[in-house]
């Protein structure tokens, strides 16, 4: 077993190295378009796994993710915009004096975005998590909308529906994927810790978990808060990727996009969420060809139909739900044990023959 631990450690290092080399190569050699798509998929990966923690590992049907993203995006935007552009952009009502002169570097702003989102997650979690199942879903959906409406109306802080512009732009693959990988590692550690076992116990059977001495409520709040923290970070990254934010970005339909990633990837699988986030984001762009007019073997001239991509996605989702309910990975994870077991049994078979 010790042997295997060593092997796994080495494999992990090798994997990280490979990813590192790929990022280093990609940063210089990929076109801006591919880099943007990869960065966007990193953001969706963070969103997917943070929602999976709440939905797939703790079994709470929460639909408040876009609200926490919204908070994160605005915190990061306000903290990093230059005082000069704040003066121009807040032309309806000047920004509150406390925030007018603030200008933070990118990384502290991202962390601050996560922390503020987590505080809101904690505050919302305390009342909302007394509910269960679909009631919880409706309550969290409501809170997310409340956040958006408040952001729309506090004009002297958020500039209301006019949105913010001139947010510093971050293009580096390292930032997005670096944070995504750190998030994956942290969540992996959490899931395999005592907390994680408690989360899974709550998901599988609340009453049994309580009987075993798990404090249901505090663990639920904990999971919800951690989910909100990473949603906030993803929101901040979204602000730096697009360089402008406004409240209409964070309508509840955005939460359903993340839900799609979680369901397709498998509820209860971190690697599943990461894989499906990357696949969906890339497919979204690849499938654009079906919306362009094209010749079918020179016989048929098919006119471009906007929205075809979505039709294909809808069919895909339907098929998954009807025939492959557990999603891409189910509750399994892609891990070395699985791979090593396979190799081991293969070897054994080879030896016996």
């Amino acid at each position, binding site marked *: 077993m010790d042997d295997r631990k060593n092997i796994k450690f080495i494999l992990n290092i090798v994997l990280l190295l490979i990813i590192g080399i790929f990022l280093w190569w990609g940063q210089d050699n990929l*076109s*801006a*378009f591919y880099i*943007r*798509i990869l960065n*966007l998929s990193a953001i969706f990966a963070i969103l997917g796994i943070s929602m999976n923690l709440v939905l797939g590992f703790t079994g709470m049907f929460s639909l408040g993710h876009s609200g926490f993203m919204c908070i994160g995006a605005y915190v990061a935007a306000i903290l990093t915009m230059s005082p000069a*552009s704040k003066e*121009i*952009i807040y*032309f*309806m009502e000047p920004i509150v004096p406390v925030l007018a002169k603030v200008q933070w570097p990118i990384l502290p702003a991202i962390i601050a975005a996560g922390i503020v989102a987590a505080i809101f997650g904690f505050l919302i979690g305390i009342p909302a998590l007394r509910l269960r199942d679909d009631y919880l879903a409706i309550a969290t959906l409501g809170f997310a909308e409340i956040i958006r*409406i408040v952001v*729309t*109306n506090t004009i002297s802080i958020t500039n*209301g*529906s*006019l*949105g913010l*512009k*001139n947010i510093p*732009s971050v293009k580096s693959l390292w930032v997005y994927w670096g944070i995504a990988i750190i998030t994956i590692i942290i969540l992996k550690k959490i899931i395999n810790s005592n907390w994680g076992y408690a989360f899974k116990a709550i998901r599988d059977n609340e009453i049994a978990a309580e009987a075993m001495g798990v404090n249901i409520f505090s663990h639920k709040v904990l999971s919800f808060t951690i989910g909100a923290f990473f949603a906030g970070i993803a929101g901040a990254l*979204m602000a730096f*990727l*697009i*360089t*402008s*934010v*406004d*409240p*209409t*970005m964070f309508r509840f339909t955005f939460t359903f996009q993340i839900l799609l990633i979680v369901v397709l990837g498998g509820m209860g699988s971190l690697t599943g969420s990461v894989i499906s986030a990357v696949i969906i984001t890339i497919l*979204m*762009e*690849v*499938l*654009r*060809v*079906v*919306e*362009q007019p*094209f*010749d*079918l073997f020179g016989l048929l001239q098919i006119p*471009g139909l*906007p*929205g075809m991509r*979505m039709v*294909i996605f809808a*069919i*895909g989702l339907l*098929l998954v739900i009807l*025939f*492959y309910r557990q999603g891409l990975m189910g509750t399994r994870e892609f891990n070395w044990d699985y791979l090593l077991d396979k190799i081991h049994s293969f070897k054994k078979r080879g030896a016996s023959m």
Partner: protein
Amino acid sequence: MLSIKRRRYVTIVALIVALSMLAVGCGGAADKGADSDKEPAADVIKIGVYEPLTGTNAAGGQMTVEGIKLANQLYPEVLGKKVELVVVDNKSEKQEAANAVERLISKEKVNVIIGSYGSSLSMAGGPVALDAKVPVIGCSPTNPAVTLDNDYYFRVCFIDPFQGTVMSNYATGTLGAKTAAIIQDVQQDYSVGLSSYFEKAFKATNGDASIVAKVNYNTGDKDFSAQLTEVKSKNPDVIFAPGNFLECGILVAKARELGITVPILGGDTWEAEEFLNQVTQYKDIYFSTHFTAEEPVTEVSTTFLDEFKKAYPDKEVNAFAALGFDTYILALDAMEKAGSADSVAIRDALAATKDFKGATGIITLDENGDATKTAVIKKVMDGKFVYEAKVDPK
């Protein structure tokens, strides 16, 4: 047994899906291959269009694209080369808008970009184009922040400050108003922006106390009795209520039902069938817009009107199609002036645009890349939109 059967079933379905996706992918790939074969010959000039064709803003995006396509049919060539339109959908989402612009620039290698309906979508696409130094011409993003700090973004529509000010001047000058009430949709940047400039201009001429009420509602609201009762109690001379045609249609009709008879003013979004249907039997409803069929501003307007009726006989002429038309011919004009399809040269030519005759008026682009041009005021009369006045920029 069952599980094996089911697994086989799943595999078959997955296979079919995979195959169909593959087929689609291949079709696309083949198509692209043909495109890139053409490219070295450089006998086409590509104009990228990113507009919301699905999602919440789809209606506006589609109208604009109709106008652009019409212009493309009329003027298919520039500098002796064929113009190819590459239309991509941005799903009314910011991250998609940024992706779309990036795609147009680095994959389709377009020379100039047109878009987008919706200021927030344009703000998402703008920085991408600026980084790549590809000029973008906006059709209808009216938020002043769109062209701010972006030398590569231009637009042919007038902006919120101008429209708000025009309506304020019209209210004081022609309608003789001394007090006004504002009803705004807090969720629409367009509505909030227009209201804020109307307020500034109105206060400047009539004093600080002249805005007697300023009330809010949200996109999607259907009941406006609370807001209207408050406005009615303040007894203003005019009401300024810019916003979406859907909500405003209900709002204006409700105001008249409640016995509010004072003139109600709005912005260019009101020029829609849906709005007109709600308010056919009422009068004293005024709004600013980009052009009018009754009094064509330039000869290009006449061409546009004729051709539009020919191409889309069952559709009402609308300002968004006209703006789309204008962006296309402005792009062509800039290329001709620049004498090349080089993006930076096109930008310089665009920046120098002066007295350009478009379907929506005579356009001069100022140092921000914003259009200064004539606004048209229309009113509702006998169930129709009727031309009322022209307001020239100062």
